[in-house]
């Protein structure tokens, strides 16, 4: 039996959905134009007025927003309402320089939690479930988002946050958790720990897991499902639009249904900005049509994926997006943290190293590994192993400070990292995250 959290939306006809989208979009463009000077200037520059936007068909006329705009407008430049109307701030995970701070009114929090509630219900959640939220809590959207969704569904909510894995399993056993929400790599780790503790999937009551915030493969899904004895569901989102729950998987596990009554998705050619038809691979763009505090229009996610309106047997009519197949920029997601190679470069220069480096990302036992190869600076060399090892450790600490995740630093000989003519190849991602 299929359950829906808001069937009138999730299973609406195309006409009904278009009506919702058109009404919300027209009002939102007007709201943004009147309240967000930064975006009004972009629209004026492009010669677009709110009157030009009469329906979703006119969406392409609006200017794009990028992460660079968010940085330029930091922290209040894209705020759509008075701060006194805002009740919450969330932020992207630990990255300096490109930090995104998003604001929420109570209504924004509500709609975000509704989105998460839809995801939990789609994974089989009801008010009889015990939902263990093992995403990080705090500025990171994962914990608060799923926590709120779990409340809305009426699940008994366990706000565990991440870490302390044996205790997570202890709670799972004692309080009979049936749903777990966390990053896929943490789910895999819980699976391994369960085994290490001499327990079997049958010793816990989990039936479903909702996993997101980082890329994962079908292979990883099968591993997690087996090790925890559950069905694993993908969830997608970004702080810029709200957090997890922008889209979510149903029992079909065939792409994520986009909550398009709140976020209109488009796929564009990342080079030209031209809108591409459904079933075509391109960069995903979102327009938030009813957020008040942080109403981003045509925000370029840099995630490459495909949209599909093919009928889904779960009964939902919400458009589906594929798992992201890559990025149109150089951002890496490592252990759930957004990492730009330029951040590592900044640290190297400030620590007196050459900007010739190589980042190698891999996955061992379903956990991401980050290795940074750096050319040794002759001035930093000494005849003792201890002194050189201390240099490696100091650099690793400085990078950890910047990124929020710990790398393994390897000092290599000068000029040993390949120079290339045009754009340097700085990143080797061996994870094979995209099937």
């Amino acid at each position, binding site marked *: 039996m299929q359950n829906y959290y808001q069937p009138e939306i999730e299973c609406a006809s195309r006409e009904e959905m278009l009506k919702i989208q058109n009404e919300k979009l027209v009002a939102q463009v007007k709201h943004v134009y009147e309240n967000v000077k930064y975006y009004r200037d972009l629209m004026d520059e492009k010669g677009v007025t709110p009157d030009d936007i009469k329906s979703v068909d006119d969406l392409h006329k609006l200017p794009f927003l990028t992460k660079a705009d968010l940085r330029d407008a930091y922290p209040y430049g894209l705020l759509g309402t008075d701060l006194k109307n805002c009740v919450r701030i969330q932020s992207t995970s630990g990255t300096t320089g490109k930090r995104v701070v998003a604001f929420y009114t109570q209504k924004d929090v509500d709609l975000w939690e509704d989105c998460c509630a839809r995801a939990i219900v789609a994974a089989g959640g009801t008010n009889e479930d015990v939902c263990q939220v093992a995403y990080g809590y705090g500025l990171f959207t994962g914990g608060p988002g799923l926590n709120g969704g779990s409340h809305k569904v009426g699940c008994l909510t366990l706000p565990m946050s991440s870490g302390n894995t044996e205790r997570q399993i202890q709670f799972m056993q004692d309080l009979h958790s049936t749903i777990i929400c966390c990053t896929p790599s943490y789910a895999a780790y819980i699976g391994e720990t369960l085994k290490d503790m001499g327990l079997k999937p049958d010793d816990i009551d989990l039936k479903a897991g909702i996993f997101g915030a980082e890329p994962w493969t079908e292979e990883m899904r099968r591993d997690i499902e087996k090790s925890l004895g559950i069905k694993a569901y993908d969830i997608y989102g970004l702080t810029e639009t709200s957090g997890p729950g922008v889209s979510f998987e149903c029992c079909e596990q065939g792409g994520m249904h986009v909550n398009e009554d709140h976020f209109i998705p488009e796929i564009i050619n990342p080079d030209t900005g031209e809108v591409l038809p459904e079933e075509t691979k391109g960069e995903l763009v979102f327009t938030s049509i009813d957020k008040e505090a942080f109403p981003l229009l045509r925000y370029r996610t840099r995630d490459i994926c495909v949209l599909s309106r093919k009928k889904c047997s779960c009964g939902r009519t919400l458009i589906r997006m594929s798992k992201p197949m890559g990025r149109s920029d150089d951002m890496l997601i490592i252990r759930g943290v957004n990492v730009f190679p330029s951040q590592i470069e900044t640290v190297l220069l400030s620590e007196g190293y050459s900007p010739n480096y190589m980042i190698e990302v891999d996955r061992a036992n379903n956990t991401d590994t980050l290795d940074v190869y750096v050319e040794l600076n002759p001035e930093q*060399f000494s*005849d*003792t*192993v201890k002194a*050189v090892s201390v240099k490696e450790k100091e650099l690793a600490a400085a990078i950890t400070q910047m990124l929020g995740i710990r790398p393994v630093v*390897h000092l*290599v000989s*000068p000029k040993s990292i390949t120079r290339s003519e045009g754009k340097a190849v700085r990143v080797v991602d061996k994870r094979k995250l995209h099937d």
Partner: protein
Amino acid sequence: MSVKQISVFVENKTGKLAEVTRYIADNKINMKALSVADTHDFGILRIICEDHDTAAKVLKDGGYVVAETEVLAVEIPDTPGALANILDVLVKSDIAVEYTYAFLSVKNLGHAYMIFRVDNNETAKTALVSEGFNVVTSETLF
């Protein structure tokens, strides 16, 4: 009264040590003493050459990362406890030894020497000499 040592950074990869020693050979440099320290990622090749200045220049010109250090060369008698006796002197003077290695002199056949990298050459030298040990210079060795 010390000896100059050259340290070369060598990545811990197959063929890297061969590469640098071949380079040294191609430049007609004769190594008199050698030790290699290794870690998971890298190694440090430490050498003492007759013509220190030329050897250091050649290696730097070749793009190698080089450090030059003054180390102590101490003659060591061929008897049990000889090394322990030297180390006792250093311990008493509160001298820390970073590393040490041995070599045989060809010029003074039958004489063995220990190279010591310590945290204070002057203090170590004074202490060893006052206890009757022979701390030598490169002229004695080559």
